[in-house]
Protein backbone atom coordinates (compact mmCIF):
# COMPACT_ATOMS: atom_id res chain seq x y z
CA UNK A 1 0.00 0.00 0.00
CA UNK A 2 1.27 3.41 -0.90
CA UNK A 3 2.58 5.63 1.86
CA UNK A 4 0.58 8.83 1.54
CA UNK A 5 2.08 10.63 4.52
CA UNK A 6 5.66 10.88 5.61
CA UNK A 7 7.76 12.65 8.21
CA UNK A 8 11.39 13.63 8.17
CA UNK A 9 13.41 14.73 11.13
CA UNK A 10 14.99 18.13 10.74
CA UNK A 11 16.85 18.95 13.96
CA UNK A 12 14.34 19.26 16.79
CA UNK A 13 11.44 19.33 14.38
CA UNK A 14 9.60 16.79 12.33
CA UNK A 15 8.67 17.82 8.79
CA UNK A 16 5.30 16.37 7.79
CA UNK A 17 4.41 15.95 4.10
CA UNK A 18 1.91 14.15 1.91
CA UNK A 19 -1.85 14.30 2.16
CA UNK A 20 -2.28 16.42 5.28
CA UNK A 21 -5.28 18.53 4.33
CA UNK A 22 -7.86 16.06 5.60
CA UNK A 23 -6.15 15.76 9.04
CA UNK A 24 -5.09 19.36 9.49
CA UNK A 25 -7.25 19.77 12.60
CA UNK A 26 -5.57 16.77 14.25
CA UNK A 27 -2.17 18.18 13.31
CA UNK A 28 -3.07 21.49 14.87
CA UNK A 29 -4.03 19.66 18.07
CA UNK A 30 -0.54 18.16 18.06
CA UNK A 31 0.87 21.68 17.93
CA UNK A 32 1.96 21.38 14.31
CA UNK A 33 2.36 24.57 12.25
CA UNK A 34 1.93 24.89 8.53
CA UNK A 35 4.76 26.43 6.49
CA UNK A 36 3.20 28.02 3.42
CA UNK A 37 6.56 28.46 1.71
CA UNK A 38 7.49 24.81 1.88
CA UNK A 39 3.84 23.70 1.82
CA UNK A 40 4.35 21.29 4.70
CA UNK A 41 3.78 21.04 8.44
CA UNK A 42 6.36 21.15 11.25
CA UNK A 43 5.93 19.73 14.71
CA UNK A 44 8.25 19.29 17.69
CA UNK A 45 9.99 15.95 17.93
CA UNK A 46 8.62 13.92 20.88
CA UNK A 47 7.83 10.27 21.52
CA UNK A 48 4.19 11.03 22.11
CA UNK A 49 4.04 12.97 18.87
CA UNK A 50 5.66 10.15 16.91
CA UNK A 51 3.03 7.71 18.16
CA UNK A 52 0.25 10.06 17.20
CA UNK A 53 1.81 10.56 13.77
CA UNK A 54 2.04 6.83 13.20
CA UNK A 55 -1.60 6.59 14.21
CA UNK A 56 -2.41 9.22 11.55
CA UNK A 57 -0.59 7.18 8.91
CA UNK A 58 2.73 8.98 8.85
CA UNK A 59 5.77 6.89 8.15
CA UNK A 60 9.39 7.92 8.26
CA UNK A 61 10.48 9.16 4.87
CA UNK A 62 13.21 6.98 3.45
CA UNK A 63 16.63 8.45 3.17
CA UNK A 64 17.87 9.33 -0.29
CA UNK A 65 19.29 6.13 -1.69
CA UNK A 66 22.81 5.99 -2.76
CA UNK A 67 23.45 5.03 -6.32
CA UNK A 68 24.73 1.50 -6.32
CA UNK A 69 28.04 1.03 -7.90
CA UNK A 70 27.51 -2.70 -8.44
CA UNK A 71 24.32 -4.38 -9.57
CA UNK A 72 23.01 -7.39 -7.74
CA UNK A 73 23.22 -10.58 -9.61
CA UNK A 74 19.82 -11.83 -8.59
CA UNK A 75 17.94 -8.81 -9.78
CA UNK A 76 17.27 -7.55 -6.26
CA UNK A 77 18.05 -4.00 -5.37
CA UNK A 78 21.73 -3.70 -5.46
CA UNK A 79 23.56 -3.03 -2.28
CA UNK A 80 26.39 -0.59 -2.39
CA UNK A 81 28.85 -2.43 -4.52
CA UNK A 82 32.27 -3.25 -3.55
CA UNK A 83 34.76 -1.35 -5.54
CA UNK A 84 36.78 -3.62 -7.64
CA UNK A 85 39.87 -1.91 -8.74
CA UNK A 86 40.40 -1.82 -12.47
CA UNK A 87 37.00 -3.12 -13.38
CA UNK A 88 33.89 -1.13 -14.50
CA UNK A 89 30.63 -1.86 -12.70
CA UNK A 90 27.93 -3.21 -15.06
CA UNK A 91 24.14 -3.22 -14.53
CA UNK A 92 21.52 -5.14 -16.31
CA UNK A 93 18.52 -3.27 -17.71
CA UNK A 94 16.32 -5.07 -15.25
CA UNK A 95 18.57 -3.97 -12.39
CA UNK A 96 18.48 -0.41 -13.62
CA UNK A 97 14.70 -0.20 -14.12
CA UNK A 98 14.13 -1.97 -10.80
CA UNK A 99 16.38 0.54 -9.12
CA UNK A 100 14.58 3.48 -10.71
CA UNK A 101 11.24 1.94 -9.85
CA UNK A 102 12.38 1.58 -6.26
CA UNK A 103 13.41 5.23 -6.13
CA UNK A 104 10.04 6.32 -7.42
CA UNK A 105 8.26 4.05 -4.95
CA UNK A 106 10.30 5.37 -2.07
CA UNK A 107 10.32 9.05 -2.86
CA UNK A 108 7.29 9.79 -5.03
CA UNK A 109 4.83 7.35 -3.65
CA UNK A 110 2.23 9.96 -2.76
CA UNK A 111 -0.21 12.28 -4.46
CA UNK A 112 0.86 15.78 -5.36
CA UNK A 113 -0.57 18.68 -7.33
CA UNK A 114 0.97 19.67 -10.63
CA UNK A 115 0.22 22.54 -13.02
CA UNK A 116 0.61 22.49 -16.79
CA UNK A 117 -1.07 22.85 -20.16
CA UNK A 118 -2.98 20.00 -21.74
CA UNK A 119 -1.89 18.89 -25.19
CA UNK A 120 -2.28 15.86 -27.48
CA UNK A 121 -5.45 14.88 -25.70
CA UNK A 122 -6.99 11.60 -26.81
CA UNK A 123 -9.46 9.13 -25.43
CA UNK A 124 -9.58 5.38 -25.74
CA UNK A 125 -11.85 2.86 -24.06
CA UNK A 126 -13.07 5.48 -21.64
CA UNK A 127 -9.52 6.30 -20.53
CA UNK A 128 -8.11 9.73 -21.30
CA UNK A 129 -4.49 10.27 -22.28
CA UNK A 130 -2.71 13.55 -22.74
CA UNK A 131 0.57 15.35 -22.27
CA UNK A 132 0.97 17.93 -19.57
CA UNK A 133 3.21 20.60 -21.02
CA UNK A 134 5.06 23.53 -19.62
CA UNK A 135 4.29 26.62 -21.71
CA UNK A 136 7.10 27.32 -24.14
CA UNK A 137 8.22 30.63 -22.69
CA UNK A 138 8.50 29.23 -19.19
CA UNK A 139 10.14 26.15 -20.53
CA UNK A 140 12.78 28.22 -22.28
CA UNK A 141 13.35 30.24 -19.18
CA UNK A 142 13.66 27.07 -17.19
CA UNK A 143 15.82 25.04 -19.45
CA UNK A 144 17.03 27.46 -22.11
CA UNK A 145 15.90 24.91 -24.63
CA UNK A 146 13.69 25.15 -27.68
CA UNK A 147 11.71 22.05 -26.83
CA UNK A 148 8.78 22.05 -24.50
CA UNK A 149 8.94 20.06 -21.30
CA UNK A 150 6.12 17.59 -20.98
CA UNK A 151 5.00 14.53 -19.10
CA UNK A 152 2.46 11.93 -20.11
CA UNK A 153 -0.71 11.77 -18.10
CA UNK A 154 -3.45 9.21 -17.84
CA UNK A 155 -6.95 9.52 -16.45
CA UNK A 156 -8.44 6.06 -16.03
CA UNK A 157 -12.04 5.46 -17.04
CA UNK A 158 -13.04 4.70 -13.45
CA UNK A 159 -11.66 8.02 -12.31
CA UNK A 160 -13.40 9.77 -15.23
CA UNK A 161 -16.68 8.47 -13.82
CA UNK A 162 -15.77 9.53 -10.29
CA UNK A 163 -14.84 13.03 -11.46
CA UNK A 164 -17.81 13.34 -13.80
CA UNK A 165 -19.30 16.30 -11.94
CA UNK A 166 -16.09 18.29 -12.08
CA UNK A 167 -15.35 17.32 -15.65
CA UNK A 168 -18.79 18.40 -16.81
CA UNK A 169 -18.03 21.96 -15.84
CA UNK A 170 -14.43 21.68 -16.71
CA UNK A 171 -13.59 19.23 -19.48
CA UNK A 172 -9.98 18.58 -20.30
CA UNK A 173 -9.12 20.15 -23.63
CA UNK A 174 -6.02 21.02 -25.57
CA UNK A 175 -4.55 24.36 -24.64
CA UNK A 176 -6.16 24.52 -21.22
CA UNK A 177 -4.01 25.14 -18.19
CA UNK A 178 -4.90 22.71 -15.45
CA UNK A 179 -3.99 21.80 -11.91
CA UNK A 180 -4.08 18.06 -11.37
CA UNK A 181 -3.58 15.82 -8.40
CA UNK A 182 -1.39 13.02 -9.65
CA UNK A 183 0.59 10.02 -8.61
CA UNK A 184 3.85 9.20 -10.28
CA UNK A 185 3.86 5.93 -12.17
CA UNK A 186 6.96 4.29 -13.56
CA UNK A 187 6.58 1.34 -15.88
CA UNK A 188 9.67 -0.79 -16.14
CA UNK A 189 8.43 -2.04 -19.49
CA UNK A 190 9.75 0.68 -21.78
CA UNK A 191 10.90 2.71 -18.79
CA UNK A 192 7.89 4.95 -19.21
CA UNK A 193 7.23 7.59 -16.64
CA UNK A 194 3.68 8.94 -16.49
CA UNK A 195 1.36 10.67 -14.11
CA UNK A 196 -1.89 9.08 -13.03
CA UNK A 197 -4.56 11.73 -12.52
CA UNK A 198 -6.54 11.33 -9.30
CA UNK A 199 -8.26 14.69 -9.09
CA UNK A 200 -8.69 17.96 -10.95
CA UNK A 201 -8.96 21.53 -9.70
CA UNK A 202 -11.58 23.34 -11.81
CA UNK A 203 -11.12 26.55 -9.87
CA UNK A 204 -7.51 26.83 -11.01
CA UNK A 205 -8.41 26.54 -14.69
CA UNK A 206 -11.36 28.84 -14.38
CA UNK A 207 -9.19 31.29 -12.48
CA UNK A 208 -6.61 31.18 -15.23
CA UNK A 209 -9.28 31.75 -17.84
CA UNK A 210 -10.75 34.52 -15.70
CA UNK A 211 -7.39 36.26 -15.66
CA UNK A 212 -7.11 36.10 -19.44
CA UNK A 213 -10.71 37.21 -19.67
CA UNK A 214 -10.01 40.21 -17.45
CA UNK A 215 -7.11 41.26 -19.67
CA UNK A 216 -9.29 41.09 -22.79
CA UNK A 217 -12.10 43.06 -21.14
CA UNK A 218 -9.60 45.70 -20.00
CA UNK A 219 -8.24 46.01 -23.54
CA UNK A 220 -11.71 46.30 -25.02
CA UNK A 221 -12.63 49.00 -22.53
CA UNK A 222 -9.40 50.84 -23.24
CA UNK A 223 -10.34 50.93 -26.94
CA UNK A 224 -13.91 51.97 -26.17
CA UNK A 225 -15.25 48.78 -27.73
CA UNK A 226 -16.63 47.02 -24.66
CA UNK A 227 -20.05 48.69 -24.69
CA UNK A 228 -19.99 50.11 -28.21
CA UNK A 229 -22.66 47.70 -29.46
CA UNK A 230 -24.96 48.22 -26.51
CA UNK A 231 -24.56 52.01 -26.62
CA UNK A 232 -24.70 52.64 -30.34
CA UNK A 233 -26.45 49.81 -32.12
CA UNK A 234 -30.12 50.43 -32.81
CA UNK A 235 -32.46 47.53 -33.36
CA UNK A 236 -34.76 48.11 -36.32
CA UNK A 237 -38.49 47.86 -35.76
CA UNK A 238 -38.64 44.79 -37.98
CA UNK A 239 -35.37 42.81 -37.86
CA UNK A 240 -36.29 40.39 -40.62
CA UNK A 241 -33.00 40.03 -42.52
CA UNK A 242 -30.74 37.95 -40.33
CA UNK A 243 -27.10 36.96 -40.76
CA UNK A 244 -26.75 33.69 -38.85
CA UNK A 245 -23.27 32.68 -37.74
CA UNK A 246 -23.24 29.06 -36.61
CA UNK A 247 -22.10 25.63 -37.68
CA UNK A 248 -24.10 24.41 -40.68
CA UNK A 249 -26.27 21.44 -39.84
CA UNK A 250 -25.80 21.94 -36.13
CA UNK A 251 -28.55 21.55 -33.58
CA UNK A 252 -28.25 25.27 -32.92
CA UNK A 253 -29.09 26.07 -36.54
CA UNK A 254 -32.03 23.67 -36.51
CA UNK A 255 -33.46 25.04 -33.27
CA UNK A 256 -33.05 28.61 -34.42
CA UNK A 257 -34.66 28.03 -37.82
CA UNK A 258 -37.50 25.96 -36.36
CA UNK A 259 -38.42 28.68 -33.91
CA UNK A 260 -38.44 31.29 -36.69
CA UNK A 261 -40.51 29.02 -38.92
CA UNK A 262 -43.12 28.55 -36.18
CA UNK A 263 -43.75 32.29 -36.14
CA UNK A 264 -44.70 32.27 -39.85
CA UNK A 265 -43.09 35.66 -40.19
CA UNK A 266 -41.11 36.40 -43.33
CA UNK A 267 -37.62 36.16 -41.91
CA UNK A 268 -34.79 35.99 -44.38
CA UNK A 269 -31.85 34.11 -42.91
CA UNK A 270 -28.41 33.89 -44.50
CA UNK A 271 -26.20 31.27 -42.92
CA UNK A 272 -22.50 31.81 -42.41
CA UNK A 273 -21.06 28.38 -41.69
CA UNK A 274 -18.41 28.71 -39.00
CA UNK A 275 -16.50 26.65 -36.48
CA UNK A 276 -18.10 27.08 -33.11
CA UNK A 277 -15.52 25.12 -31.15
CA UNK A 278 -11.78 24.76 -31.29
CA UNK A 279 -8.89 26.78 -32.53
CA UNK A 280 -10.61 27.75 -35.78
CA UNK A 281 -13.43 29.64 -34.08
CA UNK A 282 -11.59 32.93 -34.11
CA UNK A 283 -10.65 32.78 -37.79
CA UNK A 284 -13.98 31.63 -39.14
CA UNK A 285 -16.16 33.90 -37.00
CA UNK A 286 -14.12 37.03 -37.67
CA UNK A 287 -14.08 36.21 -41.39
CA UNK A 288 -17.85 35.83 -41.37
CA UNK A 289 -18.28 39.15 -39.57
CA UNK A 290 -15.94 40.74 -42.09
CA UNK A 291 -18.01 39.36 -45.00
CA UNK A 292 -21.17 40.69 -43.41
CA UNK A 293 -19.59 44.10 -42.91
CA UNK A 294 -18.43 44.22 -46.55
CA UNK A 295 -22.04 43.94 -47.73
CA UNK A 296 -21.19 41.43 -50.43
CA UNK A 297 -23.76 39.01 -49.08
CA UNK A 298 -26.48 41.65 -48.88
CA UNK A 299 -27.76 43.94 -46.19
CA UNK A 300 -28.80 42.61 -42.81
CA UNK A 301 -30.90 43.95 -39.98
CA UNK A 302 -28.99 42.00 -37.35
CA UNK A 303 -26.37 39.33 -36.78
CA UNK A 304 -26.92 36.26 -34.64
CA UNK A 305 -23.97 34.24 -33.37
CA UNK A 306 -25.12 31.00 -31.84
CA UNK A 307 -24.02 27.52 -30.90
CA UNK A 308 -25.46 24.65 -28.96
CA UNK A 309 -25.07 24.17 -25.26
CA UNK A 310 -21.64 23.27 -24.08
CA UNK A 311 -19.45 23.23 -21.06
CA UNK A 312 -18.37 26.31 -19.22
CA UNK A 313 -14.94 25.89 -20.74
CA UNK A 314 -16.39 26.13 -24.23
CA UNK A 315 -17.09 29.78 -23.54
CA UNK A 316 -13.38 30.47 -23.81
CA UNK A 317 -13.50 30.34 -27.60
CA UNK A 318 -15.61 33.49 -27.45
CA UNK A 319 -13.44 35.17 -24.84
CA UNK A 320 -11.40 36.33 -27.77
CA UNK A 321 -10.22 39.85 -28.48
CA UNK A 322 -10.50 39.61 -32.27
CA UNK A 323 -14.02 38.20 -32.21
CA UNK A 324 -15.12 40.80 -29.69
CA UNK A 325 -13.59 43.62 -31.74
CA UNK A 326 -15.39 42.40 -34.86
CA UNK A 327 -18.67 42.27 -32.93
CA UNK A 328 -18.13 45.74 -31.50
CA UNK A 329 -17.42 47.21 -34.94
CA UNK A 330 -20.43 45.55 -36.60
CA UNK A 331 -22.74 48.04 -38.31
CA UNK A 332 -25.91 46.28 -37.26
CA UNK A 333 -26.92 44.89 -33.86
CA UNK A 334 -25.28 41.61 -32.86
CA UNK A 335 -27.05 39.04 -30.71
CA UNK A 336 -25.19 36.13 -29.20
CA UNK A 337 -26.56 32.84 -27.95
CA UNK A 338 -23.40 30.97 -27.10
CA UNK A 339 -25.24 28.58 -24.89
CA UNK A 340 -24.46 28.53 -21.20
CA UNK A 341 -26.88 29.21 -18.43
CA UNK A 342 -24.58 30.33 -15.64
CA UNK A 343 -21.71 32.23 -17.21
CA UNK A 344 -21.33 34.50 -20.16
CA UNK A 345 -18.49 34.95 -22.59
CA UNK A 346 -16.97 38.32 -23.38
CA UNK A 347 -18.66 38.09 -26.76
CA UNK A 348 -21.97 37.96 -24.87
CA UNK A 349 -21.01 41.06 -22.93
CA UNK A 350 -19.89 42.97 -26.01
CA UNK A 351 -22.94 42.04 -28.08
CA UNK A 352 -26.03 44.18 -28.10
CA UNK A 353 -28.17 41.33 -26.75
CA UNK A 354 -27.12 38.01 -25.26
CA UNK A 355 -29.51 35.10 -25.09
CA UNK A 356 -28.75 31.70 -23.66
CA UNK A 357 -29.96 29.40 -26.40
CA UNK A 358 -30.57 29.49 -30.16
CA UNK A 359 -34.28 29.05 -29.49
CA UNK A 360 -34.29 32.01 -27.11
CA UNK A 361 -32.45 34.10 -29.69
CA UNK A 362 -35.03 33.23 -32.35
CA UNK A 363 -37.85 33.91 -29.92
CA UNK A 364 -36.39 37.33 -29.18
CA UNK A 365 -36.41 38.17 -32.88
CA UNK A 366 -39.95 36.85 -33.34
CA UNK A 367 -41.19 38.94 -30.43
CA UNK A 368 -39.29 41.95 -31.68
CA UNK A 369 -40.77 41.71 -35.16
CA UNK A 370 -44.26 40.95 -33.85
CA UNK A 371 -44.23 43.90 -31.46
CA UNK A 372 -42.69 46.16 -34.12
CA UNK A 373 -45.36 45.09 -36.54
CA UNK A 374 -48.08 45.74 -33.96
CA UNK A 375 -46.65 49.17 -33.20
CA UNK A 376 -46.50 50.00 -36.89
CA UNK A 377 -50.04 48.86 -37.54
CA UNK A 378 -51.26 50.53 -34.37
CA UNK A 379 -49.68 53.79 -35.49
CA UNK A 380 -51.23 53.52 -38.93
CA UNK A 381 -54.59 52.70 -37.45
CA UNK A 382 -54.39 55.65 -35.07
CA UNK A 383 -53.45 57.92 -37.96
CA UNK A 384 -56.37 56.57 -39.99
CA UNK A 385 -58.78 57.16 -37.13
CA UNK A 386 -57.49 60.69 -36.69
CA UNK A 387 -57.91 61.29 -40.41
CA UNK A 388 -61.46 59.98 -40.24
CA UNK A 389 -62.20 62.22 -37.31
CA UNK A 390 -60.76 65.16 -39.18
CA UNK A 391 -62.87 64.33 -42.22
CA UNK A 392 -65.99 64.31 -40.07
CA UNK A 393 -65.02 67.66 -38.64
CA UNK A 394 -64.37 69.09 -42.10
CA UNK A 395 -67.69 67.73 -43.24
CA UNK A 396 -69.48 69.49 -40.39
CA UNK A 397 -67.62 72.69 -41.20
CA UNK A 398 -68.68 72.35 -44.82
CA UNK A 399 -72.29 71.85 -43.78
CA UNK A 400 -72.12 75.00 -41.73
CA UNK A 401 -70.49 76.90 -44.59
CA UNK A 402 -73.14 75.61 -46.94
CA UNK A 403 -75.83 77.01 -44.66
CA UNK A 404 -73.84 80.18 -44.15
CA UNK A 405 -73.58 80.75 -47.92
CA UNK A 406 -77.31 80.46 -48.32
CA UNK A 407 -77.96 82.50 -45.21
CA UNK A 408 -75.53 85.21 -46.26
CA UNK A 409 -77.25 85.64 -49.60
CA UNK A 410 -80.69 85.66 -47.98
CA UNK A 411 -79.59 88.06 -45.28
CA UNK A 412 -78.09 90.35 -47.87
CA UNK A 413 -81.28 90.32 -50.00
CA UNK A 414 -83.41 90.86 -46.91
CA UNK A 415 -81.24 93.80 -45.95
CA UNK A 416 -81.56 95.34 -49.42
CA UNK A 417 -85.30 94.74 -49.28
CA UNK A 418 -85.48 96.44 -45.91
CA UNK A 419 -83.61 99.40 -47.31
CA UNK A 420 -86.08 99.66 -50.16
CA UNK A 421 -89.04 99.51 -47.81
CA UNK A 422 -87.53 102.14 -45.60
CA UNK A 423 -86.93 104.40 -48.57
CA UNK A 424 -90.44 103.85 -49.76
CA UNK A 425 -91.88 104.68 -46.37
CA UNK A 426 -89.76 107.83 -46.26
CA UNK A 427 -90.91 108.82 -49.68
CA UNK A 428 -94.53 108.33 -48.74
CA UNK A 429 -94.06 110.33 -45.60
CA UNK A 430 -92.44 113.13 -47.53
CA UNK A 431 -95.16 112.96 -50.10
CA UNK A 432 -97.88 113.13 -47.51
CA UNK A 433 -96.15 115.86 -45.58
CA UNK A 434 -95.53 117.97 -48.70
CA UNK A 435 -98.98 117.52 -50.18
CA UNK A 436 -100.97 118.45 -47.12
CA UNK A 437 -100.45 122.28 -47.23
CA UNK A 438 -101.37 122.25 -50.91
CA UNK A 439 -104.57 120.46 -50.18
CA UNK A 440 -105.27 123.04 -47.49
CA UNK A 441 -105.01 125.74 -50.12
CA UNK A 442 -101.50 126.92 -49.54
CA UNK A 443 -99.22 127.71 -52.35
CA UNK A 444 -95.52 126.99 -52.48
CA UNK A 445 -93.31 129.32 -54.30
CA UNK A 446 -90.09 128.19 -55.85
CA UNK A 447 -87.47 130.22 -57.56
CA UNK A 448 -87.71 130.50 -61.29
CA UNK A 449 -86.41 127.68 -63.53
CA UNK A 450 -82.71 127.35 -63.89
CA UNK A 451 -81.40 128.22 -67.30
CA UNK A 452 -79.31 125.09 -67.34
CA UNK A 453 -81.47 122.42 -65.74
CA UNK A 454 -84.93 123.81 -66.47
CA UNK A 455 -85.84 122.93 -62.86
CA UNK A 456 -86.96 125.35 -60.14
CA UNK A 457 -84.02 125.93 -57.92
CA UNK A 458 -85.59 125.98 -54.46
CA UNK A 459 -88.51 127.02 -52.41
CA UNK A 460 -88.54 130.65 -51.60
CA UNK A 461 -90.03 132.66 -48.78
CA UNK A 462 -91.13 136.22 -48.32
CA UNK A 463 -87.68 137.09 -47.11
CA UNK A 464 -86.34 136.29 -50.55
CA UNK A 465 -88.44 139.20 -51.88
CA UNK A 466 -87.37 141.59 -49.18
CA UNK A 467 -83.83 141.76 -50.38
CA UNK A 468 -82.10 144.05 -52.71
CA UNK A 469 -82.19 141.41 -55.43
CA UNK A 470 -85.59 139.67 -55.25
CA UNK A 471 -86.40 136.87 -57.71
CA UNK A 472 -87.62 138.03 -61.10
CA UNK A 473 -89.79 134.97 -61.63
CA UNK A 474 -91.32 132.33 -59.41
CA UNK A 475 -93.00 129.03 -59.83
CA UNK A 476 -96.19 128.63 -57.82
CA UNK A 477 -97.17 125.13 -56.70
CA UNK A 478 -100.95 124.82 -56.38
CA UNK A 479 -103.30 121.94 -55.79
CA UNK A 480 -106.21 121.11 -58.07
CA UNK A 481 -108.98 119.41 -56.12
CA UNK A 482 -110.71 118.54 -59.39
CA UNK A 483 -107.80 116.63 -60.82
CA UNK A 484 -106.19 115.77 -57.49
CA UNK A 485 -102.97 117.05 -58.95
CA UNK A 486 -100.62 119.86 -58.36
CA UNK A 487 -100.48 122.72 -60.82
CA UNK A 488 -97.28 124.56 -61.44
CA UNK A 489 -97.69 128.16 -62.54
CA UNK A 490 -94.72 130.13 -63.75
CA UNK A 491 -95.03 133.81 -62.90
CA UNK A 492 -93.01 136.97 -63.30
CA UNK A 493 -92.61 139.16 -60.22
CA UNK A 494 -93.93 142.59 -61.00
CA UNK A 495 -93.74 144.25 -57.62
CA UNK A 496 -93.17 143.43 -54.00
CA UNK A 497 -95.05 145.12 -51.17
CA UNK A 498 -94.78 144.50 -47.49
CA UNK A 499 -97.83 144.59 -45.17
CA UNK A 500 -98.23 143.94 -41.47
CA UNK A 501 -99.33 140.43 -40.65
CA UNK A 502 -102.73 139.86 -39.04
CA UNK A 503 -102.76 138.15 -35.67
CA UNK A 504 -103.57 134.57 -36.85
CA UNK A 505 -101.38 134.17 -39.86
CA UNK A 506 -99.01 135.30 -42.46
CA UNK A 507 -100.30 137.89 -44.90
CA UNK A 508 -98.17 138.46 -47.82
CA UNK A 509 -99.49 140.10 -50.85
CA UNK A 510 -97.79 139.16 -53.98
CA UNK A 511 -98.88 140.67 -57.24
CA UNK A 512 -98.41 138.23 -59.95
CA UNK A 513 -98.97 138.33 -63.66
CA UNK A 514 -99.64 134.91 -65.06
CA UNK A 515 -98.05 134.34 -68.39
CA UNK A 516 -99.84 132.07 -70.92
CA UNK A 517 -96.68 130.03 -71.70
CA UNK A 518 -96.13 129.19 -68.02
CA UNK A 519 -99.29 127.11 -67.84
CA UNK A 520 -98.50 123.59 -66.79
CA UNK A 521 -98.40 121.07 -69.66
CA UNK A 522 -98.67 118.02 -67.48
CA UNK A 523 -99.65 117.01 -64.02
CA UNK A 524 -96.97 116.21 -61.53
CA UNK A 525 -97.17 114.02 -58.50
CA UNK A 526 -99.64 111.39 -57.79
Amino acid at each position, binding site marked *: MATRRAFTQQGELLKLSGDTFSIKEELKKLGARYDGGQKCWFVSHAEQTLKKLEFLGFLPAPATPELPRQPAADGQLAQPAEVTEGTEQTWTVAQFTLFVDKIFRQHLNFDFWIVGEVSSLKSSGGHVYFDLTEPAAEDQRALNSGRAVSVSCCLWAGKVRLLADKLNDFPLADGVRVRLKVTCDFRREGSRLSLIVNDVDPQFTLGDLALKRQQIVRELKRRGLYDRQRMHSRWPELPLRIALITAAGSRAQTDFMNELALSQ*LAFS*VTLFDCFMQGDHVRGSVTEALSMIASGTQGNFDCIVITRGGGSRLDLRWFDDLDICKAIAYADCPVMTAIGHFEDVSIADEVASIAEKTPTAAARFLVNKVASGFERLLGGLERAARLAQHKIQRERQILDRIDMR*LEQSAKTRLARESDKLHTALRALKLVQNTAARPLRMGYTFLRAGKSSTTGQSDRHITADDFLTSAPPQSVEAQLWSATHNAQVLVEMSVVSVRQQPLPVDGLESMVDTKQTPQSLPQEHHGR
Partner: protein
Amino acid sequence: MEDNKAASFKDLQSQLQRILGTLEQDSTSLDEIAALLKSGFETVDALRARLGETEAQIENIISLRHNSSAGLIDKNEGESL
Protein backbone atom coordinates in the same frame (compact mmCIF):
# COMPACT_ATOMS: atom_id res chain seq x y z
CA MET B 1 -65.70 72.52 -61.47
CA GLU B 2 -62.78 71.45 -63.63
CA ASP B 3 -60.60 73.97 -61.85
CA ASN B 4 -61.91 72.74 -58.54
CA LYS B 5 -60.93 69.17 -59.41
CA ALA B 6 -57.40 70.27 -60.11
CA ALA B 7 -57.12 72.44 -57.01
CA SER B 8 -55.88 71.08 -53.70
CA PHE B 9 -58.10 70.69 -50.69
CA LYS B 10 -56.36 73.60 -49.00
CA ASP B 11 -56.80 75.82 -52.07
CA LEU B 12 -60.49 74.99 -52.16
CA GLN B 13 -60.84 75.89 -48.50
CA SER B 14 -59.12 79.24 -49.07
CA GLN B 15 -61.30 79.90 -52.09
CA LEU B 16 -64.41 79.20 -50.04
CA GLN B 17 -63.29 81.55 -47.29
CA ARG B 18 -62.74 84.32 -49.85
CA ILE B 19 -66.20 83.77 -51.32
CA LEU B 20 -67.79 83.87 -47.88
CA GLY B 21 -65.91 87.04 -46.96
CA THR B 22 -66.89 88.79 -50.16
CA LEU B 23 -70.48 87.64 -49.89
CA GLU B 24 -70.89 89.11 -46.45
CA GLN B 25 -69.47 92.51 -47.34
CA ASP B 26 -72.04 95.27 -47.87
CA SER B 27 -70.03 96.68 -50.71
CA THR B 28 -70.70 93.60 -52.81
CA SER B 29 -73.37 94.35 -55.34
CA LEU B 30 -76.49 92.27 -55.66
CA ASP B 31 -75.41 91.27 -59.17
CA GLU B 32 -72.23 89.73 -57.75
CA ILE B 33 -74.04 87.90 -54.95
CA ALA B 34 -75.68 85.37 -57.26
CA ALA B 35 -72.41 84.50 -58.96
CA LEU B 36 -70.62 84.24 -55.62
CA LEU B 37 -73.33 82.00 -54.22
CA LYS B 38 -73.09 79.68 -57.22
CA SER B 39 -69.32 79.52 -56.98
CA GLY B 40 -69.52 78.94 -53.20
CA PHE B 41 -71.91 76.00 -53.56
CA GLU B 42 -69.71 74.49 -56.26
CA THR B 43 -66.68 74.80 -54.02
CA VAL B 44 -68.55 73.18 -51.14
CA ASP B 45 -69.53 70.30 -53.41
CA ALA B 46 -65.95 69.90 -54.57
CA LEU B 47 -64.72 69.81 -50.97
CA ARG B 48 -67.37 67.26 -50.05
CA ALA B 49 -66.31 65.08 -52.97
CA ARG B 50 -62.70 65.31 -51.83
CA LEU B 51 -63.63 64.33 -48.28
CA GLY B 52 -65.60 61.37 -49.62
CA GLU B 53 -62.66 60.18 -51.68
CA THR B 54 -60.23 60.52 -48.76
CA GLU B 55 -62.61 58.76 -46.41
CA ALA B 56 -63.00 55.88 -48.85
CA GLN B 57 -59.22 55.55 -49.12
CA ILE B 58 -58.82 55.50 -45.33
CA GLU B 59 -61.56 52.90 -44.95
CA ASN B 60 -59.78 50.80 -47.52
CA ILE B 61 -56.48 51.04 -45.61
CA ILE B 62 -58.17 50.12 -42.32
CA SER B 63 -59.94 47.16 -43.87
CA LEU B 64 -56.56 45.95 -45.15
CA ARG B 65 -55.12 46.21 -41.62
CA HIS B 66 -56.39 42.80 -40.57
CA ASN B 67 -55.06 41.15 -43.69
CA SER B 68 -51.80 43.01 -43.78
CA SER B 69 -49.95 40.44 -41.63
CA ALA B 70 -50.23 38.17 -44.64
CA GLY B 71 -47.67 40.42 -46.27
CA LEU B 72 -45.10 39.40 -43.71
CA ILE B 73 -45.81 35.72 -43.88
CA ASP B 74 -43.43 33.80 -45.99
CA LYS B 75 -42.26 30.27 -46.01
CA ASN B 76 -38.73 31.37 -46.70
CA GLU B 77 -36.52 29.34 -44.46
CA GLY B 78 -33.34 31.00 -45.46
CA GLU B 79 -30.58 30.15 -47.75
CA SER B 80 -27.22 28.70 -47.10
CA LEU B 81 -24.03 30.13 -48.43
